[in-house]
């Protein structure tokens, strides 16, 4: 009778893989097998760490060890705070965590957190509020202190900040990596003014745009005041062709576009259009919504010369002050308008101004017919809007978030910089009935810099050194 040797070999083979597991079991039962009690065994064991292991393992009753690839599979679903803690439990878990991180195989679909600061917590501390855990984490960030900076963007775990010399940086709050972006004086409209010692002491800001026209003469701003005029919103996109990142800046006058690759020494201006409201990056192209012209533009930034195309005309009736361009998980492109209730644009002196968002109007771009189609309900999806890179997420992957809701923060540049002590327009809006709720109660944050959504990320830039 032929016994099945293949099966035996296969099962023995699997035995070899699980020898750690079996060794553990044998080891655990060794005292019993030898007929010793742990204390009598101690007398015979000269090597201290072996002695400790025998007694500890026998009394603690440790579980079988899971192989590294299984541990990695378990950790791959975790949110970053849980993942980081799991990697601190013991050396085998740490090893799995490190491999997972190095391979970039940890969960990239992290739940967006609210990033905010608070006067009482510290000048260099940023807080992250996690919906999943309903708690905040405090992170100490590199200098200059985060509370002295303006926050103008958040993409892929990177914060884009403007410091009190109006210079921009990228900061990853989780890894504390910080990268300086090209100097503000390389922006088309900005020129440095030096004092008698040759030190930079003011900026000259020119009001021209790419369009022909007559402009006021340039204005002079103090180093920390330029940022309240110039910077509007910034985005960080992975540049797949070079493996680096591209930063796109919407800046004044008139919300023009400039961009730079991380590592560049200057910003590249993209005239002639202006009045851009929001950007996104899809399939290697930058999409920018230009409301004055009523168009959606795409830019190919990969070649030596930037090429631009217009892909849709946005009818004038949709024109509105705040608008977002969002990639949907199903591959579509959404254009979303933020509607405010009536407000007093010129309040009496001393009166506070409240901008209240009352509605989001959502349209999907239909590529075939090249038109916008209104969507009344985002069943199974969640929006994150504000100064961050606009997000539309599938609610199923984020059980702690509410489907068909928009989580929004205040990105009204006039009021954020102009009225830093005012209450911020932020909350959760139900897209069905436009009812609105607070994000967290009571308010945890200081009003300046205005809080913003950020998706935590463990990635490091790993800039290649030059020369």
């Amino acid at each position, binding site marked *: *009778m*032929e*016994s*099945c040797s*293949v*099966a*035996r070999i*296969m*099962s023995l083979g*699997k*035995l070899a893989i*699980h020898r750690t*597991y079996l060794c553990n079991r044998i080891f655990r039962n060794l005292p019993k097998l030898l007929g010793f009690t742990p204390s009598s065994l101690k007398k015979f064991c000269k090597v201290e760490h072996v002695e400790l292991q025998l007694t*500890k393992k026998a009394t*603690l*009753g*440790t*579980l*079988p060890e*899971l*192989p590294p690839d*299984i541990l990695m*599979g*378990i*950790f791959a*679903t*975790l*949110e*970053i*705070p*849980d993942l*980081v*803690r*799991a*990697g*601190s*439990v*013991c*050396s085998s*878990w*740490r090893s799995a965590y490190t491999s997972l991180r190095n391979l970039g195989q940890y969960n990239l679909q992290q739940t967006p957190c609210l990033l905010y600061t608070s006067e009482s917590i510290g000048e260099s501390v940023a807080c992250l509020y996690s919906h*999943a*855990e309903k708690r905040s*984490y*405090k*992170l*100490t960030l590199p200098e200059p202190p985060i509370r002295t900076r303006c926050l103008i963007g958040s993409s892929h775990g990177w914060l884009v900040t403007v410091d009190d010399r109006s210079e921009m940086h990228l900061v990853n709050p*989780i890894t504390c990596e910080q990268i300086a972006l090209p100097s503000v004086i390389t922006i088309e409209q900005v020129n440095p003014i030096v004092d008698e010692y040759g030190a930079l002491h003011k900026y000259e800001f020119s009001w021209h745009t790419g369009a022909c026209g007559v402009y006021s003469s340039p204005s002079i701003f103090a180093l920390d005041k330029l940022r309240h005029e110039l910077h509007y919103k910034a985005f960080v996109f992975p540049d797949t062709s070079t493996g680096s990142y591209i930063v796109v800046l919407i800046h004044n006058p008139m919300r023009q576009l400039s961009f730079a690759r991380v590592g560049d020494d200057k910003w590249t201006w993209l005239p002639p259009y202006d009045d851009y409201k929001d950007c996104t990056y899809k399939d290697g192209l930058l999409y920018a919504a230009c409301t004055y012209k009523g168009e959606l533009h795409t830019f190919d930034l990969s070649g030596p010369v930037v090429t631009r195309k217009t892909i849709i005309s946005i009818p004038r009736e949709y024109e509105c002050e705040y608008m977002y361009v969002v990639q949907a998980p199903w591959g579509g492109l959404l254009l979303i308008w933020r509607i405010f209730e009536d407000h007093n644009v010129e309040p009496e002196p001393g009166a506070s101004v409240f901008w209240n968002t009352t509605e989001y109007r959502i349209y999907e771009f239909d590529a075939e017919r090249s038109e916008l189609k209104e969507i009344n309900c985002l069943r199974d999806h969640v929006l994150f809007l504000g100064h961050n890179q606009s997000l539309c997420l599938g609610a199923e992957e984020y059980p702690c978030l509410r489907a068909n809701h928009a989580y929004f923060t205040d990105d009204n540049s006039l009021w954020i910089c102009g009225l830093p002590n005012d209450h911020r327009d932020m909350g959760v809006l139900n897209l069905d009935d436009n009812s609105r709720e607070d994000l967290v109660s009571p308010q945890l944050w200081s009003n300046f810099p205005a809080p913003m959504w950020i998706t935590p990320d463990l990635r490091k830039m790993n800039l290649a050194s030059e020369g």
Partner: protein
Amino acid sequence: MAATPADASSSSSEAVVGGEKSNKMITLISSDGESFEATEEAAKMSVTIKHMIEDGCADDGIPLPNVPAKILSMVIEYCNKHAADADDTNKHVADPADADEDDDNNNNNASAGEKEDLKSFDASLVAVDQATLFDIILAANFLSIKGLLDLACQKVADDIKDKSVEEVREIFKIENDFTKEEEEAVRKENAWAFNE
């Protein structure tokens, strides 16, 4: 290959469901020598066993020296339940032309109910102590049963969530085997995640 003495289970009727599957029984032998029977269909949820059957190695029963009886019976329970579910799905798909709308609704309700049923079965299967859970993971890994492996791993992930490092060590009975220096370095690297 010499004819093996007819195993009562392997000569059972080739009753056919939907014209594809046989009801041949497979014997699985746990590490502590207990024998379990499973339909070929259920057993084939394990890719490891599926290959052994296809290579003709399963006639005398399949020894599984890594899987104790307690765990093997749970694994078989999972396979039986999920093999039956896969079969039902195939049955529904097989008759798309059933035009009657009521019938369609009934089918949908039935499969929604079955889904709930399966979900709660899965949940109770992994609602066990950590040692058993780890044993299930190791068995599912060894036997290459992806659904069960994912289910059990997700349970471990759920048990890790929102817990402090000390709590995790206690729940999973894990020894802190870092040296003092290592522990300090680890804590320092992501200090923010530990402040409670």
